[in-house]
């Protein structure tokens, strides 16, 4: 799994690519998100379009990002979520916790509209 981070209209966009499984790259992504929040990121979109599958460590990242942002008064949105990932979120009964959008643009727009 590789990932990159961008910024658009004050929204940080994290784009992982590949399966999110337990391992050092996953830890790196978690650390990066944590650092971004620490230096002031409050609005974040994780683009999951390139993630065909994740295991519980993927959930761990999403939960850590969600909790980290919420604690600082920020918000996390997910974009382009794939079926398998959606299933996993459903199994862990976290569906209500994440706002999901069909595209990154909509996710970014979502921050300004009271959706």
């Amino acid at each position: 799994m590789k990932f990159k981070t961008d910024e658009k209209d004050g929204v940080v966009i994290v784009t992982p690519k590949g399966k999110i499984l337990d391992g050092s790259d996953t830890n790196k992504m978690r650390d990066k998100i944590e650092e971004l929040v620490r230096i002031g990121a409050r609005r974040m979109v994780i683009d999951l379009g390139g993630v065909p599958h994740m295991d519980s460590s993927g959930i761990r990242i999403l939960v850590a990002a969600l909790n980290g942002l919420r604690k600082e008064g920020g918000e996390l949105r997910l974009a382009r979520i794939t079926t398998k990932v959606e299933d996993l979120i459903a199994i862990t009964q976290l569906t209500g916790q994440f706002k999901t959008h069909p595209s990154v643009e909509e996710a970014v727009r979502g921050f300004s509209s009271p959706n």
Partner: protein
Amino acid sequence: MSWSALGTGIYLACSFFLFLLGMVILRENFRSRVNRTTALMLFFGGLGALFAAVGTTLARTGGLAPGSETESWYNLFYLWELFFPALLLFALVFPKETDAVRRFRLLRYAIFLPHLFHVFWVSFLSSPEKLSGWFSVEEMGPLARVLLSPFSYVLRVAALFFAVAYKFHVRFFSLVNFSYAAMAIALLFFRQASLPNPRIKSQVRLILSGLGLAMTLYTIAFILPALFGFSLSDPWLYALTIGALVIGCGAVGWAILRYQFMDVRVIFRQNLVYFLSTGLLVAVYILAAAQLGRYIRNTLGAKTPALEIGFILLALVFFQPVMEKLDDLIKRLFIRQRSDFRNLLERFSRELVSIFDLNQISARVTELLEKELFIERAVLLLAESDAGGTLVTFSSGNEVLAQSVSGEDPLLKILLSRKQPTYLEAVWPERPDEGLARLLAGVGAKVAVPILDEGRFVGILALGEKFSGFRYSPEDITLLGVLANQLSIATANARLYAETLEKQRLEEELAMARQIQQNLLPARLPSSAEYEFASYVRPSRQVGGDFYDFLWRENQLGFVLADASGKGMPAALLVSFLQATMKAEHRYARPIGEFISSINELLVAHTSPEKFVTLFYALFDPREKKLFYSNAGHNYPILVRQDGHLEFLKKGGTVVGCFEWARYESDCMPLLPGDTLIVYSDGLTDASNHDEMFGEERLIKLAAECCHLDAEGVKNRIVEAVEAFTGPVPPFDDMTLLVMKAR
């Protein structure tokens, strides 16, 4: 051969030897004060021996007529007594200058004054006529005569006084010499006690005892007779003087050979040995030839020139091999074992390969440098860079130096780019009060040797001043460069070894942890007339983040299967906390949802928010044939009805340990004989054969097919299917399966 001729010969040899030693020491480092002072002392010693030789020769050839021209030259012999102030100065500056000399620079010259005056006195003030002869008022003009005549009287009185006192000058200066020598020996004695370097200490001790003994003999021979007005017979006098000279010369020579006195280089020391051994051999030859010649002449009664030629031929045949043997022997005795830096390196590298402890390496290299290269202080600073290389921490032995250095430190960058022993004064940064410069200054470093292992920065060998105060010679710098290479290998070995040990230790700990974890799993699966269980556990690492357990509440059987996020030790610790919490909380009878909520609250309170657990908990009532359950974010367990119909147990809530506000629901299902419940962790469905994962579809299909099997049979079918699917690919995640069959 008369006593005096033998004495003259030995005096001359000693004088030559002392001059030679003085030259060698002076040549070794002209700029060093210690060397100059030592050379001065040896020169005056040599002068003394030379004068003694001249004196005995003069005495043999008829002596000096009192009052003759030669007598005033004879008075110059007192020059050699400058040896005593030189000795005192030596005691003051060797092996390091004392504070007194450093603070009062004039002291260095002042201690020579009494003896210089003595020479002047005996040469020019020995009688009143001499003085008035230079300064005759009568020959001047009338005015000058009137003006200077009072001065002339004073001068005359002074001259008279000196002339009277002259009678006692020998006795008086004997006392002065004695006190100088005593002071020098006392000084050396008290200073050597506080020397830190054992090698320097033995040097000083050797010099001290040599000089002490020589001075004692000299005192007995000359000073005591002069003070108390008796005289010794000639043979005694010669024996004592020669003894004093030989012991004095020998002590200095031996110190050079054995203890690398004055840091004299190997080549000079070898030359010294050659000189000594050749001299010895020539002396043996002359003695033997003379004795043999006389014996042959006596027996044959004739003088044969052929005999001389025969001796020379014999000498030519035997001299060379004997010389070589002698040379070898002497080298082996004095030089080979120490200080030749190739030997040093060989010895050191042999030793280093067998040391795997960084502290020991550090101690050994420090000891070697302090002892063999005469460095006041050598410190091996081992560097530890943080991940980004932005900060470097140094440690010396067991002590981690408090101050860390930035990876961008200017001095550090210079050292790393030069990669070789570097004189710090040449590269000292503008602000030496911070960073690496401050650290190096703190350990008194003059030279820093960067140690690199294939480009990786291992540390710095920080070297203080040499004990002799010399600069490091090119030979030293080469040695240090090679040493740095060896150290980099040795430290790399030590680190690898430490890592291997650490790994081994960790593995042992993990094996123990695995044992503990296995003991935490139920020893026996419960079974009764109404139900049976089968289970399968396969952690992906030594310890896993999955567990299952059985918890009784009156006649109801509770059971749980949980999967902590992550793997290995952190996950294992989390599940053992969960397991203990569940056992404790299970004692209170209350609705299942509340039970899971309390578990969640405890986990939220005691773990970091990103750590969570998914779990499935169920409570089976065998009499009612009812299963109460709550699913906290776990893969849906599959309930296979007797007729093959499938149901999924989804009711519950989200994962446990993340959200304080999480609430859990529960559900109740009838569980009738022949029904099978399959609970598993995601490691089972995520098991992969590189291309794809086993997946839920396969598991569900399998579950539907084996509704007629007993618990063990169901478990085996599933495990076999998963193993057949993954083949030899090792499991990536912990795999746990629990099968319950109602009957």
